[in-house]
């Protein structure tokens, strides 16, 4: 496992003290899918644009395999990038867009058809102009462009946008296979569930700052315990008396950072009947995501 993408203290500010990205550092390793998670406008896209050299950072460095992206001799052969599937000349056909990329990278012409087959775009669809493509088709075309040069690294910004459930499943399997064969994947999403099912490592960003990062397992472990009792109010009281920080939810469940056995002891001492006691997993991560981004995300603490 090697750090393939390294982002070090990257900041990007625009005039008038507007900071899009603030001292962001993280790595993405080979053989792993790194999920870049954050609400809309948190700075995910800006960070990714900085990695691929489209946006110059105000300070800090970003490297891929130890080199700045702009120093790569033929970047398409090393890093596959999809930042915005709609950013294509609307008057070109899908086939033509791939051909332009294929020629730029200096690849054999047969690669275009291979990629179209890989992303399941029929030759009829490929001959249509991108103007008439659905967002899902544009995403597939973008994935095809990213994979065209057989790169070892993939950088994808919200690749699941516009894909139907089957398409998302397909994308997930594709990225899993890519990482398992030694590739590095960095993909962003504002949807927790999307990231949760695919990522090995997580980087959570809110308002331009990294708010959490680590393996998915470690972030899940840190997510605490979900517990339910027949008498929810009594449980909450008992836990508070025991000095546990809790969040009581309207559905009767109580969430705490403490470990399940601690919670069990409290319930036993208070003679409470528990109906549920478990480590907070997926739900816990969601809790964490909302919590971590609560004070920074646009919707406020509405969740």
């Amino acid at each position: 496992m090697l750090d393939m993408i390294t982002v070090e203290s990257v900041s990007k500010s625009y005039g008038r003290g507007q900071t899009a990205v603030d001292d962001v550092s993280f790595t993405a390793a080979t053989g792993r899918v790194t999920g870049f998670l954050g609400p809309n406008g948190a700075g995910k896209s800006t960070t990714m644009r900085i990695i691929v050299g489209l946006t110059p950072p105000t300070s800090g460095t970003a490297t891929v395999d130890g080199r700045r992206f702009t120093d790569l001799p033929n970047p398409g052969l090393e890093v596959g990038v999809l930042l915005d599937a709609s950013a294509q000349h609307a008057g070109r056909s899908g086939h033509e867009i791939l051909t332009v990329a294929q020629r730029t990278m200096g690849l054999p012409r047969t690669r275009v058809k291979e990629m179209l087959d890989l992303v399941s775009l029929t030759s009829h669809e490929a001959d249509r102009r991108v103007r008439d493509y659905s967002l899902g088709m544009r995403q597939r075309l973008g994935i095809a462009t990213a994979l065209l040069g057989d790169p070892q690294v993939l950088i994808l910004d919200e690749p699941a946008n516009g894909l139907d459930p089957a398409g998302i499943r397909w994308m997930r399997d594709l990225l899993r296979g890519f990482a398992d064969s030694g590739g590095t994947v960095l993909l962003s999403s504002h949807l927790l569930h999307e990231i949760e099912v695919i990522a090995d490592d997580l980087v959570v960003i809110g308002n331009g700052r990294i708010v959490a990062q680590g393996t998915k397992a470690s972030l899940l472990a840190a997510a605490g315990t979900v517990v339910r009792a027949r008498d929810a109010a009594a449980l909450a009281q008992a836990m508070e008396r025991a000095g546990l920080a809790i969040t009581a939810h309207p559905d009767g469940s109580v969430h705490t950072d403490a470990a399940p056995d601690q919670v069990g002891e409290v319930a036993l001492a208070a003679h409470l009947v528990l109906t549920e006691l478990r480590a907070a997993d997926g739900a816990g991560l969601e809790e964490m995501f909302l919590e971590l981004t609560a004070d920074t995300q646009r919707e406020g603490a509405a969740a």
Partner: protein
Amino acid sequence: MSTTVLSTPTSESSPGATTVVERRRPAPAPIPLTRIIGVELRKMFDTRSGFWLMASIVITSVLATAAIIVFAPDDQLTFDNFAAAIGAPMTVILPMIGILAVTSEWSQRSGLTTFTLLPRRGRVLGAKLLAAIAVGVVSMVVALVVGVLGTLIGSAIAGVDPVWNVSAAHFLLIVLGSVLGMLFGFMLGLVIRNSAGAIVTYFVYTLVLPPLLGLLASTQHWFANLQPWVDYNFAQRPLFDGSLSGQQWQHLGVSAVLWFVLPMAAGLFIVRRAEVK
């Protein structure tokens, strides 16, 4: 939106559990400039609008030639008249090609892919510039061929001897003038990076500005002396007449620095650092 998470994550691959194949490969060779020029030429033709813009060079040349044959009196069926008729639409179309070669990357946002595959933007713009010049020169050769055919056919129809009153040197100056016009469009595209804005600016520069400067020169004596040095349009006119004095070349050079070289340098400087969104 999240309908897909029904299946439990099977993707949880604990570190070390997966067999990670190291995919070390030799560093790829750099992309040669010739390949980038080839790609940029292709991009000028491969959209419907791009194709018709190129086709319009041939179409307007033929139409202009036909118009001369039909409407001009017999003694006006001279090569220079054909050249002028063909050259007029050319001076509009070529700068449009120059503008769109640059601005489409921004207006159509294809620059996101272009500058990711080719992060050294100076090379991409250099390739675009060379591709534009190539298109400009080839277009002028097309115009030459159409003009020659027009002169031959026109004089044959009228039953007069063809009049070849444009020298090779004159033709080269016309080519230079046309390519300079095209490069001016290219520069506007680079500085403005928006198709509509650059095209409007081009027409303001070629249609609105000259009469205003002419008016200024006719009323203000000091400007009349200065104009050849600072008015790029004015300094280019002798190119199309076929001969330039040494001083006129100097006028062209000085005004080109003001109107073309400096803004071009500023545009390059900005584009190489600007964000591509």
